[in-house]
């Protein structure tokens, strides 16, 4: 009698153990499958519309789909109507880059090498234009300088907005590199060999923060070309940039034209984005100064 009970208890215990093992095994697999499903769904969510819009820009008739034939007419139409905007965006981006290089590289160096309270306050301040909504910066500029017509209606007005918005990215990128290499010891070494401050800055500091400068430059260019929130408020009919033109076409024109214009945007930003991926540039503005040391070799990464 007792042996039968024992055997049964044993058997059920074994069964429970096996179930547990089986559950554990399949549960983990189920979870992994779930993760994969979510990941692939997100990928589809992000990429499918991009592919669709590229196709739409190249199709004769969107409603009929690819079967209606491929054409470049929309691209041609967009180019005739909007090439001014494209060139303006490029000019503004270039101007923004030059200005941020001149003022941002030294500033990044100072912030990386100064650990004082004053430098921390300056850091906080410089970040504000990207912490607060772009709308605010735009309105503020209009309020103060809107009255100066010559300035207001020129492209310089937009450049100014872009500079204020992209400066923190350049400063951060340079500061991150300046903080991680043992720059101070290198400078002491150069000083021991007789180099003055300016000689040290030009022959030692700048060459050694080059990765930061490149990263910053890429970020500045990409952000400037794509900047909308500020630019929409600041633009005039004569100073329409690419994103502003995009908004126009989305609102008023055929979906094929809007798509074609989007293709132009992709063409312009793709090389920059790929370069940024390759160098591991942080375009989200989420990393503070000197947080993670950057990898020196070119490893493709999505960090």
């Amino acid at each position: 009698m007792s042996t039968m009970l024992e055997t049964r208890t044993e058997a059920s215990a074994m069964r429970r153990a096996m179930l547990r093992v089986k559950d554990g095994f399949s549960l983990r697999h189920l979870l992994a499958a779930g993760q994969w499903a979510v990941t692939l769904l997100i990928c589809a969510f992000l990429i499918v519309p991009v592919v669709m819009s590229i196709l739409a820009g190249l199709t004769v008739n969107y409603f009929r789909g690819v079967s209606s034939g491929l054409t470049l007419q929309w691209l041609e139409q967009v180019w005739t109507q909007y090439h001014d905007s494209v060139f303006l965006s490029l000019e503004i981006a270039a101007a923004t880059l030059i200005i941020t290089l001149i003022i941002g590289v030294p500033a990044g160096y100072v912030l990386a090498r100064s650990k004082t309270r004053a430098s921390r306050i300056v850091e906080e301040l410089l970040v504000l234009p990207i912490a607060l909504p772009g709308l605010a910066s735009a309105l503020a500029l209009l309020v103060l300088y809107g009255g100066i017509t010559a300035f207001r209606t020129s492209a310089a007005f937009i450049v100014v907005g872009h500079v204020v918005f992209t400066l923190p990215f350049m400063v951060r990128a340079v500061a991150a590199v300046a903080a991680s290499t043992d720059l101070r010891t290198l400078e002491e070494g150069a000083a021991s060999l007789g180099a003055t401050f300016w000689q040290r800055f030009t022959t030692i500091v700048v060459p050694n923060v080059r990765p930061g400068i490149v990263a910053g430059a890429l970020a500045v260019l990409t952000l400037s070309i794509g900047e909308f929130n500020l630019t929409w408020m600041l633009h005039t009919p004569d100073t329409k940039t690419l994103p502003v033109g995009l908004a126009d076409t989305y609102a008023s024109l055929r979906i094929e034209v809007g798509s074609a214009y989007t293709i132009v945007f992709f063409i312009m930003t793709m090389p920059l984005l790929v370069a940024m991926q390759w160098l591991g540039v942080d375009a989200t503005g989420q990393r503070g100064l000197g947080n993670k040391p950057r990898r020196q070799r070119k490893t493709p990464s999505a960090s």
Partner: protein
Amino acid sequence: MKLAPVPITLTHCAKTFRGTRVLEPLDLAIGAGETLVLLGPSGCGKTTTLRIVAGLETPDVGGQVRFGDDDVTRLPIERRQVGMVFQSYALFPNLTVRGNIGYGLKINKTEVAVARQRVDELLAMMRLDAHADKPVDQLSGGQRQRVALARALALQPRVLLLDEPLTALDARLRDTLRSEMNTLLRGLGVTTIYVTHDQAEAMELGDRIVVMSAGRIEQIGTPRDIYFRPANRTVAQFVGTINRLAGQWRDGAFETTGGSIVLDRGIRATQAPELFFRPEDAHLADPASAQLRGTIEAVSFLGERTRLTIGGAAPDALFIDVAGRVELARGTAVGISIAPEGLIALA
């Protein structure tokens, strides 16, 4: 352009960082052409002292640094004409080996031909010819160290400052480079200050050693002075291994747990009830006739010698070295005799 080596004088140099005194006022006189080693554990102030001589730190008010007759206290490092080798070498990654070595010459607007010749000389001296045009991150640790040295020497400085130049290398390389460094420094004849925490380096390279601890100078002397005649416990315990006998002086002998040591002329009883000696100055002897008796507690085979830990001979464990081939078991009763000149009494 060759400058005669200068004597260096530090007078009343102290240093305070954010309210903490890291260096007590010190006076130091270094002879022209001498190699002075600053030896001590981390945080003792040796690097701070070096940086004061370099011009990377200024001493607190009242301190003075002189190179020969020139008061350089207010002079920034760019104008002091010192050659400095940093612990991390501080090689410029954006320049090649040749570019690094020639940097000082370029900054000082030396004529291109003259500069090139000087760089070639140094490359030959440091055996770096094959690597002249490589970027510095392709070099090994030992090679980088030589580049750093060459760069510092390129301008024929009147003072050479080395901040733990061998610390970043692995032990085997360090030994080889230490003797090379020794030959080099003696050949150059330039006034050199060498900072290290490694006593082997200090004793091999220094004409004199300054032992420092907690911002103070504990003792200045030749390597033999420091080793055989330490001024106090800190120095005795930092340099080499030291054994301590605690006990009491009585009637011209020192009594401790394991026996007594008759004192010979040359050792005077001091206030402190302790006596010191180094492992190599003691040998095993017949327990019946030895000065101290104890038992072996541990045996450590170190290759060329065996270190025995002996208990019971004194309140503290004693370390005695015997030849490597000698094998003894734990628990063996032994006797210790100490050579009379090896006994050290400290105030």
